């Protein structure tokens, strides 16, 4: 991938929260790139830091408890990790936009939909109401809202979940951002609606060329949508790679466990019991020493209990850029 094709490059993103019981590091040295026009998936279980990654990029981590630091974050070549709040504000909504998980609660219940969808235009381009309305109407058509004219003046509660999520997407795209971050955009929706929304997002990428970071806990969605995948576990990236490589040759035991434990609608029932990952997601405040996955790992080695493996190339046979955070793949293996 050529350097210029990289729209977002994140290096060493670390986010900490100070709380009642000391500091918790919810993101630990997260680095990844997003190519132009690509859909990059972030997958992981609840609490693994997916949303926090998005919020850290947007500069929306709750203050003052949260602290974000990064070696570098470049957006289309521009370094944004050291921007002040007002400079960051000018980027938000214009260069990076975000679609949130809950279309019910992410829209203001007391304001009309078109005002909310068109607000980024007012903020960043100072457009007048008529112009905004016209543009919102266009966007409504683009995201496939039926009878867009009549929906302009609706309040959020008058729309179904699917329509609300479409409106959210319209809002995200209205300033033609370089990057759209979609945080579990379909989790709250029915499967049928979900497939509509996913298809819409892919179509939009194809037509408009927006780069998308797609956050989800559903490997099915990743498989359907993404070009590249980042797997997160307990605040760290544990595996990253092209989607095919990752699904065909998962390198990290966690990824493998995940893939094994997803029930599949397409395959007949194998047996009464399903493969599962034992144990539970760790508490970030009480991480085990060494590899964070070691208590649940079936292939744990002595070194895993002592030292954290870095992200390294994921063994032989995997494509370029396929990395995993596991001693199994580290150059000197478990012997170190």
């Amino acid at each position, binding site marked *: 991938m050529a350097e210029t094709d990289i729209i977002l490059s994140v290096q060493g993103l670390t986010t900490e929260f100070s709380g*009642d019981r000391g500091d918790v590091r919810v993101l630990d040295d997260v680095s990844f790139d997003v190519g132009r026009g690509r859909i990059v998936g972030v997958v992981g279980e609840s609490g693994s830091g997916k949303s926090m990654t998005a919020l850290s990029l947007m500069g929306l981590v709750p203050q003052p408890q949260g602290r974000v630091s990064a070696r570098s974050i470049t957006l289309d070549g521009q370094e944004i990790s050291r921007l002040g709040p007002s400079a960051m504000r000018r980027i938000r909504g214009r260069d990076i936009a975000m679609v949130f998980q809950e279309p019910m609660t992410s829209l203001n219940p007391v304001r009309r939909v078109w005002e909310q969808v068109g607000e980024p235009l007012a903020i960043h381009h100072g457009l007048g109401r008529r112009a905004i309305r016209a543009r919102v109407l266009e966007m409504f058509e683009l995201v496939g809202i039926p009878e867009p004219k009549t929906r302009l003046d609706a309040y959020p509660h008058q729309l179904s979940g699917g329509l609300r999520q479409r409106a959210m997407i319209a809002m995200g795209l209205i300033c033609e951002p370089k990057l759209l971050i979609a945080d579990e955009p379909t989790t709250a929706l029915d499967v049928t609606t979900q497939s509509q929304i996913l298809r819409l997002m892919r179509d939009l990428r194809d037509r408009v060329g927006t780069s998308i970071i797609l956050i989800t806990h559903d490997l099915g969605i990743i498989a359907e949508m993404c070009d590249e995948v980042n797997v997160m576990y307990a605040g760290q990236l544990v595996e990253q790679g092209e989607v095919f490589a990752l699904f065909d040759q998962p390198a990290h035991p966690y990824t493998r466990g995940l893939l094994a434990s997803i029930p599949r609608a397409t395959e007949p029932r194998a047996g009464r019991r399903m493969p599962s990952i*034992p*144990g*539970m997601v*760790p*508490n970030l405040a*009480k991480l085990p020493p060494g590899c964070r996955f070691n*208590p649940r790992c079936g292939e744990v080695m002595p070194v895993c209990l002592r030292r954290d493996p870095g992200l390294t190339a994921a063994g032989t046979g995997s494509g370029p850029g396929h990395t995993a955070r596991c001693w199994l793949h580290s150059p000197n293996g478990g012997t170190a």
Partner: protein
Amino acid sequence: MTSPSAPLPADAIEALEEASFLRDTVRAFRKNRMAMVGLAFVLLLVLGAVFAPWISPHDPYRVALDEQLLPASTTYWLGTDNFGRDVLTRILYGARISLVVGIVPSLISLMIGTMMGILSGYLGGRTDFVVMRLADMMIAFPSLLLAMVVMYTLGANLLNIFIALALVGWASVARVVRSQTLALREKEFIEAARANGTARITVMLRHIFPNVVPTLIVLFTLAIPEAIMWESSLSFLGVGVQPPEASWGLLVAKGKEYMFQAPAVAIAPGVAILLTVLAFNFIGDGLRDALDPSMKD
């Protein structure tokens, strides 16, 4: 039923976090400095009230007309009132009545309100309609007037103050509790209890009630200062605690007559009210914050 023959998949569950609801609350509360100050003040006050006969420097009822309205001195730390009674002593004794007037009716209205609110919210239907109309009545009725009617009709004494304040207070408690009950009723653990054949009364007592307790605690801390204020209003109108008993409300209301001559007589008990109300407010705020997040996690 047999216990499982083969052990089920053991899961490697880590040691649980050592925490309990109560401990969390206490910890969160203790972090709130204002709330702790409030608590300390109230504790001090309660001690002062309980031990008033032992610690107060003078007799609260002794009339010594020779020592009227003396300024503060080493004998009379806050001076004397129009009968030559030590203001500090009167305030300490007044704390007994004011605290009781603050606490007892609040408790009564909390009890009635909780009962009514839970019944109304959980049973719904006609019970709900009747209880809520009753509550509407109490709320729509200008409360000071209601209190005055009670005081006038039953006579001005401490017991009737309780009745009056409780009559005024239960309705808003009932409303809050009812809305909480309505929310709780939809919770799955209530459904689970019903699915287990748990009797309605048990559901209300063991499931609904404990879950409204945090709200009740907060309401309680806010109801106390309100009741103290109410009592002072009633005293001002001449239907509150009757002299020579001392309540802060009465002391302030009476002291007002001497505001120009000996301001301390009115200001000192006023400050006592102020500090107490502040203290309870701080405690209430602290409790609300302390109780709230643990409800969510």
